[in-house]
Each structure stands twice: as C-alpha cells, then as structure tokens.
C-alpha cells in the first residue's frame, strides 16, 4: 500500500545519511530557543536542528514541552532565541508568515474549521499556494493524492468537519497540511485518536514522504514506532532537552524509559 502514496509534489532532494550528532546542513535550525506562557517558562533554551531529508522525532512524557517546542518554531508563543529555516531567520509571533514559507504544523487538537465542510478545509490548506489557475491544477492533483491516503475524506467532502468522528477529524488535519505542499512538516501527535491500522498507514506515509526528501518533525507518544522512522530523536523532560538520541542505539523500551525518568 505504501507505493501508492508517493507525493506528486515533493521534489526529490539529496538525503544525507543520518547522524545522531546533528545534520551537516540543517534546513531548520533553532538556536537557544525557549518559550514561555506569560511568566511561566515552559521550555528552557535549547538547540534544535532538522537536516534536509531528515525525520526527527520529539519524545517525552506529558507536559514535557513537546507541543510547546513546535509552537515555538511557528512563533505561536512568546519565545527567546532564533529559528532559521533554509538559511533565513523566521519571523516571531507571525505564524501566517512562517506557514507561508512552507513550515506546516499539524497542531495538537487538530484545529480544523468545524462549521466548514471537509472540502473547504482542504481548500484552505492550500492557501499559501495562491489562487491562480496553475496552482489550482496542482491543487487538484494533491487533492486526489490526499484522498488516496484517506478515502474517508473523499466520502465526506460535503459534511461539516465538526460533525465528523475524532479520527476522521485527525485525518482531515493531516490531509489539510499535506495540501499546503510543505517544505517541512511538523506533526503533533498525528496518531492521536486514530485506529491502529490508520496509524500505521500514516506513519508509513510519513516515512515515504520523508524518503522522497521532505523533512519531518514528529511528536509522538508511540515512541517505538516513531523511533523506527526517525533519523534522530530529541528527548524532552520537564521543559528541557534531556537527550538527543540515535534511534539505532535505543534498543529497548526500557532504555528509553531510563532516559525519561533519569
């Protein structure tokens, strides 16, 4: 089934070999990135890098700051430090500008447009591609690709998104992000609420996308499945960076747990 999900829109990029120490030429690089909610520091300064073609996993227990890290990259929270993407510094507190550079986040809680239809949600996913004729043709192609990935969405094109089941909404959130032709894809627990089979399929698809050159940041509670795909893993705990792992070295679940609670 994986072969079917080849992205039509992602151009192939040279994929460097994975390394736990960090990529040679990072696409996304955060230096001293920290975040706070009001006066509460939720993320202590950390360095975070994603190489071109890398899939980076972010792991950690509840409240560790995983979601906060992704939000900080987009500039959705008050941050310190600097984030650059493809060599240029990303603006802060202007998520729309960050998103239109191709940094696409599937947020926690999905953020679908409940009262709008599935079709409208997907269409808005492609907003930053513009409304011209050419982009519309490309959009059609991406749309059929998303439908291949999530046939349920095609069945429910006219349904209001808010009335769909939890898992269906999650599919929509991911599908919508894929519509944007991301240059880098950030996913916050994409498997949340999805049936085991769909989860597997999604993770597999992410692997395929990644191998075709798309950098991916994956926050995932199912550490083993995430580690299977990842080039590197950042382990957060209590709002700070606990370790950067090489998945090949993390053999067992116990070993991971040791990092979690060390």
């Amino acid at each position, binding site marked *: 089934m994986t072969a079917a999900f080849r992205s039509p829109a992602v151009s192939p990029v040279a994929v460097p070999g994975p390394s736990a120490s960090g990529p040679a030429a990072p696409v996304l690089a955060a230096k001293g990135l920290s975040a706070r909610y009001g006066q*509460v520091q939720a993320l202590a300064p950390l360095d975070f890098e994603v190489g071109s073609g890398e899939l980076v996993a972010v792991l950690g227990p509840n*409240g560790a700051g995983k979601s906060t890290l992704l939000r900080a990259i987009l500039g959705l929270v008050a941050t310190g430090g600097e984030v650059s993407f493809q060599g240029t510094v990303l603006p802060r507190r202007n998520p729309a500008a960050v998103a239109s550079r191709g940094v696409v986040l599937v947020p926690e809680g999905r953020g679908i447009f409940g009262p709008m239809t599935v079709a409208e949600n997907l269409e808005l996913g492609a907003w930053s591609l513009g409304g011209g004729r050419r982009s519309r043709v490309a959009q059609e192609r991406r749309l059929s690709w998303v439908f291949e990935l999530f046939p349920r969405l095609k069945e429910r094109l006219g349904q209001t998104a808010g009335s769909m*089941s939890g898992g*269906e909404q999650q599919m929509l959130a991911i599908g919508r992000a894929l519509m944007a032709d991301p240059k880098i894809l950030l996913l916050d627990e994409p498997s949340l609420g999805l049936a*085991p089979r769909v989860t597997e399929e999604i993770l597999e698809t992410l692997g395929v996308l990644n191998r075709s050159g798309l950098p991916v940041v994956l926050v995932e509670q199912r*550490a083993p499945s995430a580690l299977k795909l990842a080039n590197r893993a950042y382990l957060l705990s209590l709002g700070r960076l606990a370790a950067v792992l090489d998945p090949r070295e993390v053999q067992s679940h116990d070993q991971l747990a040791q990092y979690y609670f060390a």
Partner: protein
Amino acid sequence: MTACLDVRDATRSFGGLVAVNAVSFQVMPRSVTAVIGPNGAGKTTLFNLISGAIAPSSGRILFEGTDITREAPEAKAARGLIRTFQLVKLFADLSAVENVKVGFHLRSRGGLLAALLRPRRVRGMEAAIERRARELLDLVGLGAAADLPASALSYGQGRLLEVARALAAEPKLLMLDEPAAGLNADETARLSSLIRRIAEGGTAVLLIEHDMHLVMNTADDVVVVDFGKKIAQGAPDRIRQDPAVIAAYLG
C-alpha cells in the same frame, strides 16, 4: 446478576448515514468493557446515546434494570452514569483542583442558603471535598499541578484531569472515551492499572480505545463495531484472533 448497563438495539442515523446500527451489549458490574472499532465506526455516537447527549433513533438503554433511554444527561449522571469526552472538555478558567471539585456536585448538597450561611455541616463538607479532590489528583498523578489553571495543562494532563473529575462523581458506570490518547506507553500502563483498580472498587467501566495494549490488558469484555454495527464481542484473547476484527480493524 443484573447487568449494570444494558444496551438494546441502539440505533442512530444522521441524514442517510446510520452511525450506530442496532447495537446491543451489556456491561456487568465491576467489569471493564472496551468498545473498539475503526475511525468513524460509531463508538463516540454510541457513547452519546448512552450518556444522553443525543437521542437514539430507536432502541433502548437500561441502567440497573431501569429504562433510561430518553433521560437527560444530568439525570443519567445522577443515577451514577458518568462519562468523559473524546475531545477534552475542561473548565478552562478553573484550576485543576477546582475542576475536580465541580465533579463532586452529585456527591454533595446545598444551594443558596448553604452558600450564604455556610453552617458547620457545609464547612465540613467543603473541607472534605477539597481534601478528596487533591487525593484524586494525586491518584492520576496531577497532584503537583493542582493549582494550575486547566488551560495551562498539556494535552495528556488534561485527559487525566478529566478522569479525576469523573471519579469525583463516584460513578457506578464510568465511561471513558479514548482515555489513553496522548499518553505514552508508561503512562498508558499506569492508566490501565488505575482502571483495573476502579473496576475492582465496584465501578463498572466502559471505555473506547484505540490503544490495543490498554484494551487487551484492561478489558474483561470487548465489543467491536464497524460501520455502526457490532461485529464481534468477547474476551480480549478471542477478539484478537477473530478474523473479522482483524480484517476490519487490527490489520
């Protein structure tokens, strides 16, 4: 032994779509029953029918032998039927411990006069509620977050808070909609043991879950639905082997 919950031919359609189609099953006291099935199979809709959030198109729901099909959610809750939500519904402006204290509504008494005069009885009750609310937070592991506003909790923390709040109502039947979503393996394991203890304490548990570890380790009985229909029911071991379930769900 009479069933705690008896669902008979519950059916609900939305326009042309039959989201829940003549589903019947029973939940026994002190047992854990899991409902599993693919996305959009109708599990949450089934929960909504049982808890009274939406009315069934047909079918009946019995709780401890009484027909409660058309009762309002709050009336069902008063009978001891308490649920959590797939998308957490916390009282965002309240602190975690205050959230739990709201959960004690059915387990306490008092209206305007009690509020204004605050007699000894009420003071004692308030103190007990405060104490037990914190105990419940400790139980789910949120003791240290007790005074944070609920809006400041992470997603997983929020789910646990919802469980604690539901426990405050001391339910006879606790319905959990994907309680483990957003928890990692360890947290899920802890949740599993918590659920077992809840059941042993005398509360029947009905849960929806996609995490098969949790389901297999926790449930006594598993109900499988697909396209709104019940396609299998039985002990976890049997369900794991059922070809229909494998085809539809487990893959």
